[in-house]
C-alpha cells in the first residue's frame, strides 16, 4: 500500500487530510512561496553579480522550515547548517535584512559580516547558520544542555544535511545528547545529495534512522509532502523530546531542485529524476490543493503570488540601496571588553 507519506508512494495527487483546512493550507502556501520567491530573486541577483560567495538555495525544501515554525515554542531554538534562508524567513526574520546580508550590506541580518552561510537571528529563535559541515551538532547539544541545566523547557531543533552523517562532530553531538538525555531533535534533511554525491555513496545505509537506537534516540522518518504532515509528525517528536527530555532523530526525505550552490548546474542527476521529485514538491501540491480542492481560481493564486513577489522585490531594492558596512565595522565584535 502506498500513501503520500511513504517514500515509495506513487500518488502525489492525492489531497489527503493534510490539506483539509483551507485557511491553514493557504497560510502555509504563502509562507512556502515567500521562501521560494526570495530564493529565486537571490539567484537572479547572484547571476547579475550583486551577490557573491557561496549561495545555497532552499528551493524544494521550504515545507520543512514552515513546518518547523508551526511546532516551535518560545523557549525553543533552531540551529541549521548553511542552507538557512528558508528558516530565517519562516521564523519571522525580515526578508529585507536577509537579502541585505546576501549583498554584504550594513543593514544585513548580521550587518554584512556573515553572508548567506552564517544567518543568525536570535530574536526569531534562529541560532545559526553553521558552514563547517557537522560542527553545529555538538553546539546544538550544548543549547539543549543549557535548557536542561536551566530548566527553561526549551527544545533545540538541529537540522543537518545527509552529507553531515559521515563526519565526526555529528556522532559526538549525538552521543552526548543520548548519554545526557538532552531535549534535542536532530533533523536530517535528506535531500539525497551532498554536493554531487548521492546518498548511496556517502551513507552506508539508506534508512538513516537505523542509527537512532545506538544513540538512545527515538526516531521518525518520512517524505516531506506537506507542511501539515511534517508539522504533525515533527511536532509529536518535539513534544516527546520536551516532555521526556529525550533526544530524537528525524529523517525528512526531501529534494533540492537547484544545484548544490549557484555554481553547480547539477549535471550528476537526470531530468527524469528531477521531474519525478517535482511531482512531490510540497509547494506544487499545496497549489493544486488550493486550486482543485478548495476552489481558489488561478487568478486568485496569481494575485497572491504577485503580492509575495512584491514583498521580495522590495527586499532586493532595500538591499541594493543599503549602505555597505563602514570600514571600522571590521574591528567590531571580535572580543568583548571585560
Amino acid at each position: 500500500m502506498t500513501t503520500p507519506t511513504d517514500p515509495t508512494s506513487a500518488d502525489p495527487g492525492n489531497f489527503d487530510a493534510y490539506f483539509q483546512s483551507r485557511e491553514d493550507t493557504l497560510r502555509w502556501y504563502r509562507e512556502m512561496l515567500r521562501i521560494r520567491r526570495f530564493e529565486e530573486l537571490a539567484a537572479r541577483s547572484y547571476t547579475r553579480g550583486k551577490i557573491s560567495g557561496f549561495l545555497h538555495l532552499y528551493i524544494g525544501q521550504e515545507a520543512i522550515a514552515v513546518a518547523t515554525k508551526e511546532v516551535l515554542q518560545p523557549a525553543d531554538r533552531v540551529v541549521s547548517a548553511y542552507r538557512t534562508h528558508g528558516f530565517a524567513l519562516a521564523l519571522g526574520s525580515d526578508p529585507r535584512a536577509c537579502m541585505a546580508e546576501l549583498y554584504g550590506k550594513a543593514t544585513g541580518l548580521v550587518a554584512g559580516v556573515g553572508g548567506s552561510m552564517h544567518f543568525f537571528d536570535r530574536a526569531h529563535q534562529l541560532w545559526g547558520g553553521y558552514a563547517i559541515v557537522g560542527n553545529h551538532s555538538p553546539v546544538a547539544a550544548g543549547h539543549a544542555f543549557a535548557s536542561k541545566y536551566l530548566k527553561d523547557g526549551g527544545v533545540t531543533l538541529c537540522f543537518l544535511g545527509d552529507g553531515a552523517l559521515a563526519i565526526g562532530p555529528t556522532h559526538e553531538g549525538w552521543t552526548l545528547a543520548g548519554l545526557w538525555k538532552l531535549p534535542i531533535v536532530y533533523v536530517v534533511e535528506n535531500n539525497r545529495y551532498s554536493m554531487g554525491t548521492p546518498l548511496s555513496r556517502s551513507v552506508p545505509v539508506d534508512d538513516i534512522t537505523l542509527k537512532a537506537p545506538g544513540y538512545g534516540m527515538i526516531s521518525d522518518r518520512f517524505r516531506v509532502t506537506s507542511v501539515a504532515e511534517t508539522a504533525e509528525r515533527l511536532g509529536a517528536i518535539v513534544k516527546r523530546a520536551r516532555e521526556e527530555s529525550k533526544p530524537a532523530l528525524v529523517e525528512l526525505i526531501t529534494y533540492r531542485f537547484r544545484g548544490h550552490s549557484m555554481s553547480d548546474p547539477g549535471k550528476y542527476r537526470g531530468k527524469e529524476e528531477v521531474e519525478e521529485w517535482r511531482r512531490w514538491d510540497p509547494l506544487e501540491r499545496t497549489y493544486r490543493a488550493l486550486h482543485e480542492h478548495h476552489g481558489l481560481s488561478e487568478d486568485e493564486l496569481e494575485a497572491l503570488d504577485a503580492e509575495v513577489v512584491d514583498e521580495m522585490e522590495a527586499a532586493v531594492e532595500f538591499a541594493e540601496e543599503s549602505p555597505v558596512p563602514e570600514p571600522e565595522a571590521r574591528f567590531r565584535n571580535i572580543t568583548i571588553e571585560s
Partner: protein
Amino acid sequence: MPEIQIRHAIRDAMREEMERDDRVFLVGEEVGYYNGAYKCSEGLLDLFGERRVIDAPIAETGFAGVGIGAAMCGLRPIVEFMTFNFSAVAFDQILNNAAKIHHMTNGQFSVPIVFRGPNAAAHMLGSTHSQAFEPFYAHVPGLIVIAVATAYDAKGLLKSAIRDPNPVVFLESELMYSVKGEVPEEEYLIPIGVADTKRAGDDVTVITWGQGVPVALKAAELAAAEGIECDVIDLRTLRPLDTEAVLESVRRTNRAVVLFHGWPYGGVGGEIIARIQEMAFDHLDAPVLRVCYEDVPMPYAENLEHLVLPTPERGLEAIREVAYRR
C-alpha cells in the same frame, strides 16, 4: 600566606567561582568521580554534584562544542582537556565556533567559556603528548590565551578567565601542578593581559611564560652568578599581549631573550621578536634570541628529550650571547 600547589589553586578558583555563580560548571574527561586526571578538580563532584561537575566520555569535539553551545545560552562552562594535545581533535570547535560566533553573529551571541588543561612537554611522553599549543590558539582573533606558572597567578587568572565574557584558552603545566606557592586567603583577581616581572634586572630582558618561567628564572640565577642581571618578564597572557611591559624592559636593557616551551617556527616567540624590532629597534644592542624546543617532534628517549627542551643552561648561553659575554 598559606602555600598551596598549583593544582589546588586551580581547584580553589573553580570552587569559588562555582559557589559564586550557579551558571559555572565543569565538564571534561575524568573530572568528576576520578577527581581529574591530575586532580585539579578534587572534591568538586562531592561539593556540586553531577549537574555541575560532568564526566564526559572521550569526545573532545563533542564536549567542547556542548560547552560552546551552553555558553551561547548564558552558562559559564569550564571545559577541561585532559591535556591540550587532545584539544587538537576539537580544534575546529575552538577555531570556528568559540572564536568566531560573537563576531559572526554581529554580537547577538557571546561565548564566555574557559578551555583549560596542561600544555607542553611533561616527561618522556613522546611526540603526540608533548606539544605546546599556544601558537595555534594565540594566532586566532577572538580568543584570549593565558599561560600560568605560579599558584598565585593560576588562581587569580583562572577566576578572571571564568568571569571573562570571551572564550579563554587557559594553559597549565603537568610538570608544575605540584609546585607550591603563596596564595592569599582573601579573594583576589588578576587582570587578563598584564605581564608580571618575576625577577628584576637591568642587563638582559628574558621574556617567558608558562612552563618556561621556572627555566628562565633558573637561567637568570646562573647569569647573576656571572654578574649579568636579568629582567624576567612572565607574560601570563599571550593574547592580548602586554607589549608595553616587554618594550619598557627592552628599552632599559637593550637586549632580549625569549624563552619558552614550544617550537620556534611561527610561534609566539617570533611574534614577540617581531614586535620588539618594530617598536624598539633603535634600542637593541644585539639580535633577540629564542630558547625553545628544537624544531623536531619530541622524542621519547630521555637523553634526546633533554636535548630538545629549553634548559637553564641553554638559557644562560643565550643570555651571555646577547650580553656579548662569551
